[in-house]
């Protein structure tokens, strides 16, 4: 029955910090240990919870829930504003621990990473990976603090290693191999599988697939032609059997930021000042990756008119905050009233070779020099030491938050 599964030794390890931000807060503040804690991005009742501690989760608090709803479920809930510098420190500590075991590590986000043991030293590869997993948990406690906990999953590919890491939270360690694959998947729901939610679940249900085992037993041709209608079908067939299809890196395609307005009563001018702040932030991110862009995309969510967006593609690449803001403002003139959220991103990114910009004359060269000088000053004296006068006073609202999905800027 298990023919076709990857029967090689499991050499991929997934490490996931449990309730990362809340755990780090409980580590740094000993008096909060054992108490319900929620981390938020802004100190208001209407803000959503980014991370909840296990004590809060046990009381029914979940990620995404509004604080005012959460405090009803968990009286005494302590809400803390996210502290990016602290999480960044823990991220680098965790990465340092992982690198001691293999040079082939991939940080999937700020709180999870993958170690590939295929190409590490013989000494390490000859050891039992379960022992290494427990050793890493101990190192995390020794080198960051005793409250730190992580889940470890070991398997033959990234997908099953992540699945293994989610089986026993918190502080679990599980292995999925060809021998226990069916038994493990038999205990899960379709939506327990990473990547199966919403539309993918509907696609599978539409052809009579309701459990991970039914998914596993469906042949690649059926998954291609009937379910995913693309190469994704074959990839899922391989992925579920423990073969690696996810060891790929994706190029940076867009750079963006969004902001949920702090109140409903802001004037159009106040909203565009916050948009200006976002443009400065996006410009900094763009240049930190040595990229230039050719497209600008803006969106707004309106209480009365729903989602609105506009985009513009330029003939020439741009990079400065002022160029991004000028285009964003041109587009934003068509935005609806009654806005509750705004966002901007730059797309059509390419490497900033310098050559292409210098072709376009003195004005562009001057803009480049001024931008570089401002970036240098901000790097030396701190973020937003120099910024547009228009965004004076927006900094207390539009703070830089920790990026959950990308590790490029950590």
């Amino acid at each position, binding site marked *: 029955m298990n023919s076709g599964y990857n029967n090689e030794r499991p050499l991929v390890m997934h490490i996931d910090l449990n309730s990362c931000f809340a755990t*780090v807060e409980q*580590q*740094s*503040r*000993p*008096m*909060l240990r054992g*108490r319900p804690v929620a981390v938020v991005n802004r*100190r208001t009742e209407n803000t959503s919870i980014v991370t909840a501690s296990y004590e809060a989760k046990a009381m029914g608090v979940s990620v995404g829930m509004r*604080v005012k709803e959460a*405090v009803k479920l968990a009286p005494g*809930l*302590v*809400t*803390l*504003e996210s502290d990016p*510098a*602290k999480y960044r*420190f*823990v991220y680098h500590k965790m990465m340092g621990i992982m690198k001691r075991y293999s040079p082939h590590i991939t940080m999937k986000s700020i709180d999870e990473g993958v170690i590939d043991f295929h190409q590490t030293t013989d000494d390490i590869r000859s050891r039992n990976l379960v022992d290494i997993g427990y050793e890493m948990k101990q190192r995390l406690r*020794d*080198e*960051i*603090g005793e409250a730190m906990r992580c889940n470890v999953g070991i398997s033959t590919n990234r997908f099953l290693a992540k699945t293994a890491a989610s089986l026993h939270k918190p502080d679990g360690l599980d292995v999925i191999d060809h021998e226990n694959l069916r038994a493990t998947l038999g205990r899960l729901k379709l939506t327990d599988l990473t990547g199966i939610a919403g539309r993918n679940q509907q696609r599978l249900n539409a052809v009579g697939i309701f459990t991970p085992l039914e998914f596993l037993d469906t042949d690649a041709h059926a998954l291609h032609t009937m379910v995913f209608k693309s190469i994704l079908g074959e990839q899922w067939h391989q992925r579920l059997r423990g073969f690696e299809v996810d060891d790929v890196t994706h190029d940076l395609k867009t750079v963006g930021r969004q902001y949920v307005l702090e109140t409903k009563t802001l004037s159009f001018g106040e909203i565009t000042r916050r948009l200006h702040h976002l443009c400065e932030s996006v410009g900094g991110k763009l240049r930190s990756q040595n990229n230039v862009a050719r497209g600008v995309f803006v969106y707004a969510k309106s209480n009365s008119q729903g989602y609105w967006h506009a985009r513009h593609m330029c003939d020439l690449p741009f990079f400065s905050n002022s160029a991004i803001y000028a285009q964003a403002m041109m587009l934003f003139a068509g935005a609806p009233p009654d806005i509750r959220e705004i966002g901007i991103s730059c797309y059509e990114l390419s490497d900033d070779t310098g050559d292409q910009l210098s072709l376009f004359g003195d004005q562009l060269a001057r803009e480049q020099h001024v931008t570089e000088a401002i970036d240098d000053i*901000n*790097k*030396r*004296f*701190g973020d937003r*030491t120099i910024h547009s006068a228009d965004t004076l006073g927006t900094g207390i609202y539009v703070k830089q938050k920790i990026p959950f999905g990308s590790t490029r800027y950590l």
Partner: protein
Amino acid sequence: MNDETFLNERVEVLASFGDGLNPCKPIRFRRLSGREIMVEKIGLRHPANKGTRTIHVFDVTDGGADYRLEFDTERLTWHLTREADHYE
């Protein structure tokens, strides 16, 4: 709700400098009011950058409340920047 008070209070700190994971350990500090607080435990120490200046942030507790001390490595000054509510 939030249990922290944000401060920017210059404090005198008695600290030890040794080896190990946390070579610098604040032992006790005196606030402007003259009140002395004994550090019972360091929760986490992490560096933070203010431009090119490095600040070492110490989240500590006296066993009744949590505090944040910041050590400026360029100016060699300590500041108490946060104090949390006292828990029983």
